[in-house]
């Protein structure tokens, strides 16, 4: 893990997304698919927490050696600021952070399932798998055409690819779950990798469990620091010995997890809602400020 000031080599618009390429040899040398970067926000704004992005490309050789690419999905003030930065400006970056996808030793047929922005880290994984002579097939989904991440790149990297959009503007109409069983069947999937919002990952986890397909997924949980300090980005994960579960930090213990051990129902059922205060007042419960 390195912290450095990196020059922006180039920026480009990719449909709804924006890609930034940095000159960051120390990080590019180390980064593996699944890992992420923590980008510092500018001084003097009212938003200040670092923003976190999966590594899309880390080039170690050739004309792009020492460069690092990540993809921004504009969701709020921090990501919108990142859309406005220009080539030759500098960003303060910490990376690579988190766990990486592990490559299969015995198996060869890999199915990569991405929804939306998740594809940015899986294309990096596809390259590394191809370099290890694995077979790569893909399912890439998004709500609409301009949120399908680099479809041509996806086709180039995979033996077969199935593209689905919620509104049918590219590929078939539907979600990744609609085509997943068929793709897994047709390509003889032995290992599955996924990067998507957690409700989709939960469904993929259910599918893998049912078919007994070993899998690894990269989760998306809101992070504070991304460095393992603040304990905000936790995911409930069952212990190996079956004695219960722990809240593991997705920034240092993840973001790549074995989906069979993630307690998806517990994690996703925790969607908060506003409850009215009862007339007798709130009971004193163990709720710690800490």
């Amino acid at each position, binding site marked *: *893990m390195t*912290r450095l000031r990196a020059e922006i080599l180039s920026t480009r618009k990719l449909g709804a997304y924006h890609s930034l390429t940095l000159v960051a040899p120390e990080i590019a040398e180390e980064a593996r698919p699944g890992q992420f970067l923590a980008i*510092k*926000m500018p001084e003097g704004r*009212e*938003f*200040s*927490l*670092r923003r976190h992005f999966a590594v899309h490309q880390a080039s170690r050789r050739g004309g792009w050696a020492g460069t690092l690419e990540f993809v921004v999905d504009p969701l*709020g003030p921090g990501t919108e600021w990142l859309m406005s930065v220009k080539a030759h400006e500098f960003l303060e970056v*910490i990376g690579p952070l988190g766990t990486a996808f592990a490559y299969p030793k015995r198996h060869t047929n890999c199915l990569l399932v991405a929804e939306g922005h998740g594809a940015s880290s899986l294309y990096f994984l596809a390259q590394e798998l191809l370099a290890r002579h694995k077979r790569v097939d893909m399912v890439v989904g998004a709500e609409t055409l301009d949120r399908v991440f680099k479809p041509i790149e996806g086709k180039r990297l995979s033996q077969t690819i199935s593209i689905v959009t919620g509104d049918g503007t590219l590929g078939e109409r539907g979600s990744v779950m609609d085509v997943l069983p068929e793709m897994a069947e047709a390509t003889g999937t032995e290992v599955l990798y996924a990067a998507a919002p957690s409700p989709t990952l939960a469904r993929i986890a259910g599918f893998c469990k049912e078919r007994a397909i070993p899998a690894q997924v990269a989760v998306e*949980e*809101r*992070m*504070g*620091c991304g*460095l*393992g*300090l*603040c*304990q*905000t*980005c*936790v*995911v409930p994960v069952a212990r190996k010995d079956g004695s219960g579960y*722990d*809240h593991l930090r997705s920034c*240092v213990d993840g973001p790549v997890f074995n989906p069979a051990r993630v307690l998806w129902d517990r*994690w996703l059922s*925790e*969607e*908060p*809602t*506003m*409850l009215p205060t009862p007339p007798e007042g*709130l009971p*004193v*419960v*163990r*709720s*710690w*400020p*800490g």
Partner: protein
Amino acid sequence: MAGVKRSLAVDLGGIVLTTPVMIAAGCAGTGKELTGLVELRKVGAIVSRTITLDPERGSPTPRIAESASGVVWSTGLQNPGIDAFVGEELPRLARSGSHVVVSIAGGTLEEYVRLTGALQGRPEVSAIEVHLSGPDLELQRPMLGAHVDRAAEVAGAVARMSMVPVFAKLPLHASDLPEIAGAVVRAGATGLTIGGSPPALDVQPERLRPGLGGVTGWLSGPALLPMTLRAVFDVSRTVPETPVIAVGGIRTGEDAVAAFLAGAWAVQVGTATLIDPAAPVSIAQGIVRYLKAKGLATPADVRSRLRVPASFGAASDAEEDRR
């Protein structure tokens, strides 16, 4: 000014820090994470995450939301419990070469006593910080530290048992904060940490939902600085001989100096460390730059030197008299 021997060292009632900048509770990880990102030897002290008697799983997610110049958060004190902490995390934190202050929280007096007992005789512990912003399960009150007698009872019990200095961390938003501070010091606390995060709520109107999984949370970050300064100012005038550590919104060397002027002996840095792990070191450098520019030798030279009109204290005394 030639001949001034500049030093950042500060003696907080028995624990001597090389710099007056500490990492606040819950922002230093578990002793592994900061390696390589900041030279921990150059940090005055590390406060551990707050430890409870039993393991605590913490709040549901999301646990953090950004607000204007701040963050709303709730981790629910996730921690492995005192036994696992003493066995694994404490030795690792101590290897950093910085002082380790252990933050403890209980729901009952007995829990505080047992926590202090578990830390007794551990050479890695330089001091104990008593987190008093949690609920009082014995007396069925939402905030233990908001009540003068109770805060003094708990802090006093810990102080009597402890062989190392004890700092009581009082809730920033408690009414009668100076009165609580005075009682806690009389009960035996070495010093005070001012203060614990005030309560906060993040609302996402679009989704009609709170931003945090646990619904309610706490505010941290630069938005807090003026509240921290006021609380430190009021408390340090009540107990001028007692070491006061300021925490809440300190991000730069200038912010730290502001806290010293208001009466703080040292500062803790929380949210700023999450954003920039080297912040505690750069804040110390900022303090040095300020001292140099003013021709001063140590942070103690600015402590409580805020220039307020002479009539300020007198006016409030007069008011006091009228009551």
